[in-house]
């Protein structure tokens, strides 16, 4: 940042050579002040239109009784105070109860999925750190799930999980003889595990990619010094590689958490519009209850609650991880 200050000072000296130098210099000074804002303007307008204004609108909508009669003219919908929130949070009634259930399912799902994605991604990246034959091929191969469009990959998994003609039951039931009859995977309690498998398959390559990028920043001298001290590979991984990944992990885990918690695409393609109760992730739950009943007010209230939860978790997480890092650095 410090070097930007040099620029305006040098510029007028060059401009002076042209006739009318002083005036141009002053005007260019003002233009220079406006320039960063001009450069930001398109990004700013787009963010306002698609993210910020809709978000504020969503918050306003959550205080309205916005049913299908008011879709054409949402501003005319009557205010309803905190009604939408109390409906969403009334855990004794059906709406609140199913929201709570969906929330808890999502928490459980997210913890498992993020943990597994991180574990597989880190293991693969660390094991592929040293050069050996076939390393390049594997590195490319492991990125395939990340590169495949979500819907194409998830539809394939849906086929594999079919009860009568899918691969999973063919292997488990026909070939390994597990269970008396082929299990259902896309309905009932098993659907949670099916969803988890797909989510991990889809998500771990991103962890792999990020950790791999992080590994490139570890100076080679550290390994050389450790080797001279007689530390073997396992010791080097434990005492150099993993501690050096701390700051990468801080961002990675947060990003994985937010993506997984908000994931809509995977359950939507895997189960269709209505997910089984055991795999009813919160985004799909809100989508379904909004578009089934066309009650956008309650849907918005649920979304706002979700946002508040995510803000809280992110804030606490950043507070804990950065403080931990600072004390360890000192």
């Amino acid at each position, binding site marked *: 940042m410090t*070097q*930007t200050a040099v620029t305006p000072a040098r*510029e007028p000296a060059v401009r002076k050579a042209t006739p009318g130098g002083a005036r141009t210099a002053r005007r260019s000074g003002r233009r220079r*002040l406006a*320039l*960063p804002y001009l450069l*930001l303007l*398109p*990004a700013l307008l*787009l*963010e306002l*239109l*698609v*993210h910020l204004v*809709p*978000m504020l609108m*969503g918050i306003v909508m959550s205080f309205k009784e916005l049913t299908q009669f008011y*879709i*054409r003219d*949402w501003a005319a919908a009557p205010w309803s105070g905190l009604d939408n929130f109390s409906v969403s949070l009334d855990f004794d009634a059906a709406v609140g109860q199913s929201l709570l259930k969906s929330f808890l399912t999502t928490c459980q799902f997210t913890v498992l999925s993020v943990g597994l994605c991180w574990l597989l991604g880190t*293991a693969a990246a660390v*094991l592929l750190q*040293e*050069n050996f034959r076939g390393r390049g091929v*594997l590195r490319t*191969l*492991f*990125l395939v799930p*990340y*590169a*495949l*469009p979500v*819907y*194409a990959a998830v*539809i*394939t998994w849906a*086929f*594999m999980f079919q009860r009568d003609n899918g691969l999973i039951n*063919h292997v488990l039931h*026909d070939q390994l003889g597990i269970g008396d009859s082929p299990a259902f995977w896309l309905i009932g309690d098993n659907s949670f595990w099916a969803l988890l498998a797909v989510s991990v398959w889809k998500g771990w390559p991103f962890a792999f990619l*990020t950790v791999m*990028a992080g590994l*490139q920043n*570890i100076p*080679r001298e550290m390994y*050389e010094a450790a080797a001279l001290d007689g530390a*073997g590979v*396992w010791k080097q991984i434990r005492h150099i590689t993993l501690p050096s990944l701390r700051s990468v992990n801080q961002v990675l885990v947060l990003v994985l958490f*937010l993506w997984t918690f908000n994931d*809509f*695409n995977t359950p*939507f*393609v895997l189960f269709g519009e209505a997910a089984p109760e055991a795999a009813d992730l919160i*985004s799909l739950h809100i989508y379904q209850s909004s578009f089934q009943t066309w009650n956008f007010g309650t849907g*918005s209230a649920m*979304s706002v609650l979700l*946002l508040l939860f*995510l*803000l809280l978790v*992110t804030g606490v997480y950043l507070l804990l991880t950065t403080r931990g890092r600072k004390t360890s650095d000192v």
Partner: protein
Amino acid sequence: MSDAAHGRAPRPRSPMAPPRSFLWTRRIVLALLTGFVLLPVYVMVSSSLKPLEDVSGKFEWIPSTFTLRPYADIWETVPLADYFVNSIVVAGAATVLSVAVAVFAAYAVSRYAFRGKRVFTVTVLSTQMFPGILFLLPLFLIYVNIGNATGLALFGSREGLILTYLTFSLPFSIWMLTGYFDSIPRELDEAAKVDGCGPVKALFRVIVPAARPGIVAVAIYAFMTAWGEVLFASVMTNDTTRTLAVGLQGYATQNDVYWNQVMAASLVVSVPVVAGFLLLQRYLVAGLTAGAVK
């Protein structure tokens, strides 16, 4: 500085040969991961070559009959070609626009000190964590209302989808490009300015060429984001603007599921993205190393 200290130099390698325990762990873990990754790919490819009665019965590891019929039929069962065109137009336009907007914004953030810079970067990044569902409903209403008020058809049109998708990749793109631009020595654009380039000219003459890997990485990310998005596509498209993300479910929701065609179509829509991604992936790793991971 020795050559080894530079980024893409030889991997850290201990002078001692790794112990057996490490080699076996590596073999087993990598073999399992390879199997996990390839399983759906194998199912996709092998099932797309089977006749319908073979995918409706018990799963077979090795197809007993091979046929290329599904690859001909996919274009008839649903208007796949139209969906393809829609996806290419939407994802292509969203990518080009998103990269252009991100380059300007990242240039401002990286090279200028100005009021509100922190607010801007924090706000933009935090939009990444908003649940899509929170702004789906309002955006739906905004587009419908803009349409009613001005006749500008954003809802259900390609333009509306382009506008939406281009902002999806924007936060990450700006963040990554800012990091990348920061790693380019300022002396380079200073020198260009001394040679009489304006700031915008310096951006295109000096920064953009130097940041090519970062820009390619961002473009891949933007394209993949738009190509794979399902939620907004399912609400904001109609019969004529439907993209592959929604269109592909056309085979799966009919009474008879043509699984061989579903697999063939999945493969056909995946090949361009996967091939492009794998060809360009080194840029993504380089871009992530320079930009995001610091």
